[in-house]
């Protein structure tokens, strides 16, 4: 498979995650959706880092992906803590529908 199809798969993951983020109400699913979108972006970066033929791949996007993983871990941790706090407060792990008047 060419690197281009991997990049397309990455875009696919991004769109899939975006869809899940919008349609699912449960916060854990939303957090997972964000993670899947992040994986999609990483896949695009890694796929496009490949140079033609036997040349070594470009290392800069790889470094970006590693940095991106660090960011994703911290963001996910924060999101999970917030979700647990919210669930403890309201009794359900969904965003309350009513905006404050």
């Amino acid at each position: 498979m060419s690197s281009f199809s991997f990049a397309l798969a990455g875009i696919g993951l991004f769109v899939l995650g975006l869809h899940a983020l919008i349609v699912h109400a449960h916060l854990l699913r939303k957090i997972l959706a964000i993670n899947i979108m992040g994986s999609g972006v990483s896949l695009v970066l890694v796929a496009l880092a490949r140079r033609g033929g036997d040349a070594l791949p470009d290392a800069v996007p790889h470094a970006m992906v590693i940095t991106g993983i660090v960011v994703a871990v911290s963001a996910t941790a924060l999101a999970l803590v917030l979700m647990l706090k919210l669930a403890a407060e309201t009794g359900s792990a969904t965003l309350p529908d009513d905006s404050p008047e």
Partner: protein
Amino acid sequence: MLQAVIADSHWAIILILLPLAAAVLCFLYARAANIIGVMTLSALVLSVAALGWQIRETGVYHHAIGGWEAPLGIGLYADGLSLLMLTITAVAGLGISIYATSYFKQQDAARFWPLWLLLLASLNALYLSADIFNLYITLELVGLAAVALAALTGGRDALAGAMRYLLATLLGSLAYLLGVALLYHGFGSVDIAILATQAEPVPVLWVAFGLMGAGLALKMALVPLHFWLPATHASAAAPVSALLSALVIKGAFYILLRLWLEIFAPHSGGAETLLGLLGSAAVIWGSLQALRQTRLKLLIAYSTVAQLGYLFIAFPLSTMAGAAVWSAAGYLALSHALAKAAMFLAAGNLMRFGGHDRIADLDRVVQRLPLTAGAFALAGVSIIGLPPSGGFVGKWLLLEAALTQGRWELVVVIILGSLLAAAYVFKVLGRAFTQAPVCQKARAVPARMEWAALLLACGAILLGFLAPFILPLMDIGDPFSASGVQP
């Protein structure tokens, strides 16, 4: 001697490292957090002034960290636009910090200061970054620190607001990062200066701009992506609301403006018209929503949605008169930061005083809290854009550009936005004179909280007189030249 020291020091690095170190110190020595925090903010104001003096004397500042030049290393860059944003952050931040020393109890202060100083370090790093990937990292850091601050008070509304904010900000960052990936693939660099010379009007550029623009618009709560802002900004603690509304939002705007000026403006293909339309919609719709609110903090939050719209009205005007319009937008951002911080702090005083923020029950606060009512009124003058305030200078320059270009629809929007702003400011002030049907018991408000709000509001008014000094400083390094007259 002193001049040589100022000219040779790396103020940009100090601006990032100092708040970072102070955040750790505040975390370790929670008892001294208030003192460490205010001292850090004071030192930052001086450092920004020194950086300003430095780049005025020696031109734009450029530094490759660790000696690694772009494309590999991380570059720091400071010109007039960076200086403007750093000034906004340091000055408004100092006012809010002084307020926070009285607002938070010991336990909350121990959690507030490390997060706020981390936010400050990330914001400063954002304004000094020279490449789009580093901008992504700082944008994410700003977002995470801001979400944690929004959740600080706990409780159902604050937690739900913070969660909604976190999801919105993560989605915005990911869209931005995908844009970074495409730009890197298309033009082989993440350095803004290199991208500026390499960029060509090819589809990958437009897709990247679409993604980055949409992501940043979500973070800035541009209509119709503003769904998260009012609840989040209204449910946070007063100093946090002020930080979010005055400073955090501006970070995303800075990135959008920087990318636009350096990379996208020459190949925009009509995107500025769309941004102008959305900005106009934000001005009208946000103002109307603000007018409808019965709670003070929600009113101020919707006012933020409206005032941010003005920054987007600058995009369609900039194609004909670049530098002048961007100076106007910069001035609006500056005065909005001070005025909006003052408004949220005043609202915090009123909530402390009466225990609520229902506009209808303000109950003669003009007599009972004259300094706070004065702060709200003066901030309102700047938000409306009445002379001699900073808001007036910004809106006047914008209006002048719209008039000379014959953009009558934008003229109407600018004036209508001001009229609606006057309506919602006077709606609050009118209630401040009336007596509530039920007399309420009141809690004392510390004088420091009242004065902090009043001084920030006075700063917003004072900006109206400082325009001749501040406008030339913004032009250091010609940050606005790229979007000059297009053939």
